[in-house]
């Protein structure tokens, strides 16, 4: 982790109609940092992530990624998104395309690589997530865990320098969670800047540089895994940890 600021969120507010979901979030993420976001369901974690690549437009506040203000109308949001990989809870693999086509689509369509280069890269990425044998497979033939690993490979194909994960293992059968977390750990080790929303507290303890607790549209507490898990101060965080750790 170094001191360069990769993502800077200032006073981010998001309303859905009358419902204020994000109430002024401030967060800085440094280069190579792994930030794990925890918090009860409905607290605004997904909304926060989706604002970072403008799948939702902020109501107010600023988001600067790599010195680019993504709220600036002059910013080409497509260019910004090329550098921000996103992994969804429900994988969202393109069901009309094969595994390799899923990975090759964006680099080829956006002129980042020729078909041959993209195919070679797809093979390498699949090897990296342990699925080299699935190159020609259809999406429908894969298990959930396999689909999520392909989704990670697909995001990596654009060579992003930030990765967003929105509960990547919540929709998986328990025996598949390990494989996906394994790939994510490996990414973290290689120095990827990551913002991960998850309920996997083990992963947070082991991999996170910083843990952020969100409740009611605000960051209530943040710190190292040790501070958050072993010395929580906020009563709501204590309550939350009680629930998730003592099931």
């Amino acid at each position: 982790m170094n001191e360069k600021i990769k993502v800077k969120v200032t006073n981010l507010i998001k309303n859905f109609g009358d419902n204020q979901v994000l109430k002024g979030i401030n967060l800085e993420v440094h280069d190579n940092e792994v930030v794990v976001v925890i918090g009860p369901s409905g607290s605004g974690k997904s909304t926060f992530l989706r604002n970072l690549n403008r799948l939702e437009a902020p109501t107010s506040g600023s988001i600067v990624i790599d010195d680019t203000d993504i709220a600036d109308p002059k910013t080409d949001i497509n260019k910004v998104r090329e550098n921000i990989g996103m992994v969804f809870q429900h994988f969202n693999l393109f069901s009309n395309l094969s595994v390799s086509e899923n990975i090759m689509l964006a680099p080829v369509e956006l002129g980042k690589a020729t078909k041959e280069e993209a195919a070679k890269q797809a093979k390498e990425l699949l090897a990296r997530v342990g699925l080299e044998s699935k190159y020609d497979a259809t999406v429908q033939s894969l298990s959930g865990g396999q689909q999520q690993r392909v989704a990670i490979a697909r995001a990596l194909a654009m060579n992003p320098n930030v990765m967003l994960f929105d509960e990547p293992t919540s929709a998986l059968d328990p025996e598949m969670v390990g494989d996906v977390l394994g790939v994510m750990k490996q990414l973290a080790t290689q120095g990827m800047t990551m913002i991960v929303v998850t309920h996997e507290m083990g992963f947070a303890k082991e991999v996170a540089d910083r843990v952020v607790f969100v409740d009611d549209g605000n960051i209530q507490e943040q710190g190292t895994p040790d501070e958050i898990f072993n010395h929580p101060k906020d009563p709501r965080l204590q309550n939350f940890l009680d629930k998730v750790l003592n099931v």
Partner: protein
Amino acid sequence: MKRSFIRIVGGLIALLSLFAALNFSTTPAKAETTYQIATDSTFPPFEFANSHNKYVGIDIDLLHAIAKDQGFKVNIKPTSFNAAVQSVQSGQMDGVIAGMSITKEREATFDFSKAYFMSGVVMAAKPNGKVTSLKQLRGKRVAVKTGTSGAQYAQSIHKKYGFKIVTFDESNDMYQDVLTGNSAATFEDSPVMKYAIRQGTKLKIYTKPALSGPYGFAVKKGHNQKLLRMFNNGLADLKANGEYARITRHYLGAKGSSDTTSDRTFLGLIKQNKGALLSGFEQTVWLTIVAIFFATLFGVIVGLLGVVPSKFCNGISTTLIYIFRGLPLLVLALFIYTGIPSLTGQKIPAFIAGIITLMFNEGAYIAAFVKGGINAVDDGQMEAARSLGLPFGKAMRRVILPQGIRIMIPSFINQFIITLKDTSILSIIGIIELTQTGKIIIARNLEGFKVWAIVAIIYLIVITLLTWLSNWVQRRVRL
């Protein structure tokens, strides 16, 4: 495999545009001396298609003889009586000769020639039936044909005699209604009724001609006065040289033109009308194919407008779908064919008016399911594509549409079959497709049941073929 599919589609599009170009360019250009004359397609003995599918009759023969006498050319276009009258009103046609009675009402909007025929309305009913005079009509139904003097006569006396009027667009349907006993009698022009009875219609005339009416050739009021003058001069010449008498005798004399002796079995009817049925069938198929092509184009564009991220475009899409799905096809066809030209003064050939009608109507249905199909694709697919940096258009084309189209295919097949069937409604603007061909053949031989059975079977065969073709395409696309 994908490429060969694209090639097939590409070839088809090329073929269609070629056909469209040919078809549109062969619509007769109006030369100096060629007049476009509208007539009724089914009003024997004044106008009807003979067994060689050629238009003949008192009106047709007179007009040709007058044109020859006066040195001008005519291009006679058979359509329904109403469409014929309206097409002259809207300026689509120069004149109308369709056994049209000269009335005060019509003189307000038409200029008529001198009367070329004296007709009168008679009542016909089943022979040996219970109805033999107007008095016995009380409480019963009387069949008339829309817009004829028979209808006018019925209107003028129905209160006095206490009967109910049922209107039909075709003479044969009206006779059938009397024969089946739904209606007690029909009011029809006497020459028409006589001719029908000679053709084997089992009805009998019970009254003397009433409302004796002159038939005239008509042009739009204040227009085509030269044509009107030539008609009058020619008519006088024909009466003087005996040609007029020869023509009327040919159709109304004791040995009138009649084909009651011809073979009336199914096979016989098919054989006699092979040419007409084939060309009606071809017209139906071409209408269907060209209409599907343009309706698909229109539908896909309007459907896509409904899903792009722009409230303005979404609004346009919703409005277009609402309007064109809401309008009955018949109203839309008449509006485009007769309404628009009377506003703009610009003629539209019936075939093109038909294609435009189907394009809007069927296209609106296609737009609705294109929109629905795209919306049925999981939102996560679009989000995943956009999160990779793909612009909206690329995401749509590469990810959403391929999935949406799969959802839409069954609706497309269904819509193609509906389009084929809907082409029959275009007979109203005088396109001689399969249904109109059936009406024309029946007007001549009055074999309603058998001819409709033949027409129905032809439709079923085409629909079966179309279904097979669609299923084959569906299998290939599924892959």
